[in-house]
């Protein structure tokens, strides 16, 4: 399963820094960023950096993984509600499936997401891990 290098590059702010879009008409935030507001259809949107902490609303464990993902298996995908109420779907990391709980606090970190085989590009992006309190 190959990603498009130009597309990933265009979207790197979203992948690296959790940058979404805020609609200038209705004020709602979308992630991943969208040129067109999915709530009111407005084209007037601006960049918005999302909070890095949230909680797991729901999750699913994927055992039959796509090509190239066996090294990360099983994949745990979370539906996460961020501190500002925005919901994102993202991989969870640093947890075994049996350790994941709905409601658990998580925070965004930068991890390897995918690589184009042994010789191609390595893609980095946001994953969520259990929040480290300090």
């Amino acid at each position, binding site marked *: 399963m190959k990603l498009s290098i130009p597309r990933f590059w265009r979207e790197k702010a979203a992948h690296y*820094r959790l940058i979404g879009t805020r609609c200038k008409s209705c004020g709602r935030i979308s992630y991943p960023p969208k040129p067109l507001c999915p709530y009111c259809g407005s084209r007037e949107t601006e960049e918005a950096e999302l909070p890095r902490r949230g909680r797991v609303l729901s999750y699913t464990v994927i055992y039959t993984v796509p090509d190239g993902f066996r090294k990360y298996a099983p994949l745990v995908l979370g539906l996460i509600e961020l501190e500002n109420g925005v919901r994102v779907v993202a991989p969870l990391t640093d947890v075994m499936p049996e350790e994941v709980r709905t409601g658990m606090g998580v925070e965004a970190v930068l*991890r390897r997401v995918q690589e184009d085989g042994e010789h191609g590009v*390595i893609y980095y992006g946001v994953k969520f891990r259990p929040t480290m309190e300090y």
Partner: protein
Amino acid sequence: MPRPEVKTGIVGWGAYVPRYRLKAEEVVRIWGFEKSMPQNLFIVEKAVGGPDEDALTIGWEAARNALRRAQVDPAEIKAVFFGTESKPYAVKPSATVIAEALGITPATMASDLEFACRAGSEGLRASIGLVASGMMKYAMAIGSDTAQANPGDVLEFTASSGGAAFIVGPREESAAYFEGSYTYVTDTPDFWRREISPYPLHGEGFTGEPAYFHHIISAVKGLFEELGLGPDDFDYAVFHQPNGKFPLRVGRKLGFPKEKIMPGLVTPWIGNTYNGSAFIGLAKVLDQAKPGERILVAPFGSGAGSDAYSLVVTDKVEEKKPLAPTVEDYIRRKAYIDYALYSRFRGIIRRITV
């Protein structure tokens, strides 16, 4: 004329250690070593990066913690030096990805440096120069590795994953300011890895005395002479930590008691993080140091060279400590894995990828 270093200091520090741990007993069990080996090396367990971690992601988290403590606008950082010997790409900088992901790009210097375990320290000394000269207000040096060791080699007990980062800035904003620095390098064939080799080799007879001990002792004595200081003037001493024993022994040779070395000693519990080794030790000392205390730091890299720095802790250290997780927080956060899972996580098991 005052030394240029005194205009600069560490305005933010941060470390990162992955969650997984491999007990030294596991290496004994799998490779048929003597049971006394871990004790001889003073190594209990080592940190292992997860399957989605590499030197870049480790460096990112350390750098992010340093930024939290520095509380500066990332765009004001004008240099990012990334020291590693396990960069994800042979050609394509990791420093640019980290800089981009932290909002430091595009008006910044960024490069990956290589000098075995002291590349990050070369970045630190360069940062001091760039800030002291007035060319920039802030510069960042990161040391990070997912250290490789040939399976079954004695290095496998210690080679581990982790990193730390320091943001150098004006002395007035610093948690600790630099008093001086001194570098000592020679051509020494103690440890190397060729481009196509997955694992490093070490030159028997060159490790230890002619490499680690000679270079660290020479750098530290050079610093002492320039600053007119001796071991009694320091409250802490942090050295490169290839195992738990060497830093204690080099400290003893230089006149430092164990009590001044233990606060910055991390290898027995997380392993040798190569470029992260002395850096994490320094981060751990800053996590606990009090204003007015003086710190000696001496990283070492094979090939070979050592840098010695003298730092004096300021009042600002207290307000910065709680802004990011401490080294101790990361050491305590752990989950044990066996040798099989370690092999999978670190790519020791070769698969054909399609």
